[in-house]
């Protein structure tokens, strides 16, 4: 015998409210990001394993990684994340028109991050550190490269949504749910980067 309440948002009519679908989407995105946390955790584990087995780190003769530019880059990504959050918070308060501007700015900062990261890679290649030059180069290029792919995905998604939001300004229906989900993803990318920056550039 069951007297337990039904699951969230399910109604006998079958139609579901927008609010219920917002909750669905947030739960789904959270699970997806949980999975992605495991992916990056496994990469960090791999780094840890080769690191504890190394005789010295960085290996003798390997060029040192810069710390200044990546630090700036970290700030860039955090700023981008906060900007998107602020735009969304305003949209909730009724200022839906500014969300397009916020998203465009966030995408621009993300693109800036990619440009700076590209410059760091080029400098390291010029100094003689390659993906194929031992585990040190492997860790540096694989981890930052794989993360950069995620930044690229985020920049593309946010740009598309910014354009959609700008177009919606006239018709009045911004893609808010998609932006909220992307903001979650974008926070995740920034948090992973902070951990990666500390682990790869400082430890």
């Amino acid at each position: 015998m069951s007297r337990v309440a039904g699951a969230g948002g399910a109604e006998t009519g079958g139609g579901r409210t927008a609010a219920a679908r917002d909750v669905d989407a947030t739960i789904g995105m959270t699970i997806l990001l949980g999975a992605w946390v495991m992916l990056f955790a496994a990469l960090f584990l791999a780094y840890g394993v080769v690191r504890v087995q190394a005789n010295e780190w960085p290996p003798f003769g390997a060029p040192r990684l810069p710390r200044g530019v990546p630090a700036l880059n970290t700030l860039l990504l955090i700023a981008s994340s906060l900007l998107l959050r602020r735009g969304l918070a305003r949209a909730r308060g009724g200022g839906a028109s500014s969300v397009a501007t916020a998203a465009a700015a966030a995408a621009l900062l993300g693109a800036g991050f990619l440009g700076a990261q590209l410059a760091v890679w080029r400098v390291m290649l010029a100094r003689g550190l390659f993906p194929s030059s031992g585990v040190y180069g492997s860790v540096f290029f694989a981890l930052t490269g794989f993360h950069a792919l995620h930044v690229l995905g985020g920049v593309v998604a946010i740009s598309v949504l910014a354009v959609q939001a700008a177009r919606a300004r006239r018709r009045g229906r911004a893609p808010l749910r998609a932006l909220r989900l992307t903001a979650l993803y974008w926070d995740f990318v920034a948090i992973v980067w902070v951990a990666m920056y500390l682990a790869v550039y400082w430890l």
Partner: protein
Amino acid sequence: MPADETAGGAGDEASGDGDADPADESQQAPRGWWRRYVFSTDHKTIAKQFLFLGLGFLAVGGFLAMLIRWQLANPGAPFPLVGKLLYGSSGGVISPAAYTALFTMHGTIMIFFAITPILIGAFGNFCIPLLIGARDMVFPRLNLLSFWSMFLSTAILTASFFVPLGAPQAGWTAYPTLSTAIGTPGLGQTLWTVAIYFNGASSIMGAVNYITTVIRLRAPGMGYFQMPLTVWGFWLTSILNALFVPVLAAGMVLLFFDRVFGTQFFIAGTAIRGGGDPILYQHLFWLFGHPEVYILILPAWGIVSDLLSFFARKPAFGYRVTVWSMIAVVVLSSLVYGHHMFVTGMSPMLGESFMLLTMIISVPAVVLFFNWLGTIWRGAMRTTPPMLFALGLVFTFAIGGLTGLFLADIEADVYLHDTYFVVGHFHLIMAAAVLLAAFAGIHYWFPKMFGRMMNGPLGKLHFWLTILPLNVVFCGQLLIGYAGMQRRLYDPSAYEFLRPLLELNRGISHAAFLLGAAQLIFVVNFFWSLARGRKAEPNPWQVGTLEWTVPSPPPHHNFDRIPIVRQGPHELGNPRVIEALGRDWLAQDEEMP
């Protein structure tokens, strides 16, 4: 690449509608052939797509197994009939390199491209919304993406057969140094890593969808403990999928980088230079790989726990205990992977811990097993094909599970590791138990999926001609493994001490050929029933779960009205119901008389 998937998924779910929700798109059937049959968002159509894809690859993987068994029975003899077609340059003889590719692809296809799409893709998709009283998955478009990611993955894997230097040859586990660019040069193995990556992406998307659907779309009145055990199986599997497939994905990313960009994660260094660690790959692989065993068996457990109750006409014995046992297995499964690595020079203390945890996992497994026995104990058994296959699982799971205890023990494992004993053990679970559950599920849900019944007598014939040779094959493998024959040997007769085993190997092979041939009965039954089978009533098995309260096949929107759940899933044989209604079952949305 991964970044785009994530972002795509995010954009996908909500592209367009921000706040107002236009009439649920899942309620209107789409028009047009492409939208309806190819790029469909209907969970029932996607389930069928997964089913056909999985069955197709099951046939391919099965045929590869026949080739392997041929070589072991008649080392160096040309394969009859199609041998010249496949291996023309060697006159039909399977070469050592070809043999290596064979067992690599057999394992890969069966695990990732047959069992995964059939059990999780097809049944998961078909059952979850129907059994919990929902109109569709919560994210229909993500569901579509999940299937097409799987399809892309199969295309890449198939392509790897046809590239220079041939198919991957590093075994289904792809251990470095075998799988590095030095061990297996050529594009084939690289394509393999990409294929597994997209396969994993498909699994993760499916898992996100399944978990959220069960949390959000259960019909009113259906608490977690009113869900059919089938749904529990899929739900727990999805949780493991979401947590551990990404770890495999990380391994694939690093392996891909090692092969393509020359990174050295899995390439051992010298004492002076330092370097990567081949064993690291094994950690990443088995961190995923052991949960994977349960990812595949949990849906089978769920389905069988339900079917035994339905066809014994009794409520499932110890429903809650079964659920908690499955949950215990899920938790423990993530802590035992080290038992695959006892011989890698692992610290003995770590080894002992893994041994202990592995042995502990048999406690919930045995509880589950005895609950099954309790369910059928003095039941009014209906030995339909689904029930026979379910009972077959109970039998093979018992042998397969018991042999696992030998391998969990470090001392025994040091001897048995990498022998055919291991092969026999995991085939009894993966190939026997899981496959039997798949057949049980197909016979059971076929009427609901396609609106026609499968042929019963043919199904029973198929069952007996499957279960008997199947046990000969896999128990035979236990024997030759115990006698010391290593797995993956091209020609065991090259070793003096394995020569006496040739006759036994032949016997196993002949049983395997019989097993392979018996599957043709299933093929005939499946397609014949699809076209000509007897029209199915809404509830041919007379059970009470929600999918049987709607027509066969269900309409596009599944339920005209979302049902209100009032009963558990196994309301069978209740005297009050029999007295009042003259039947021995009560649907989940009916009031107790």
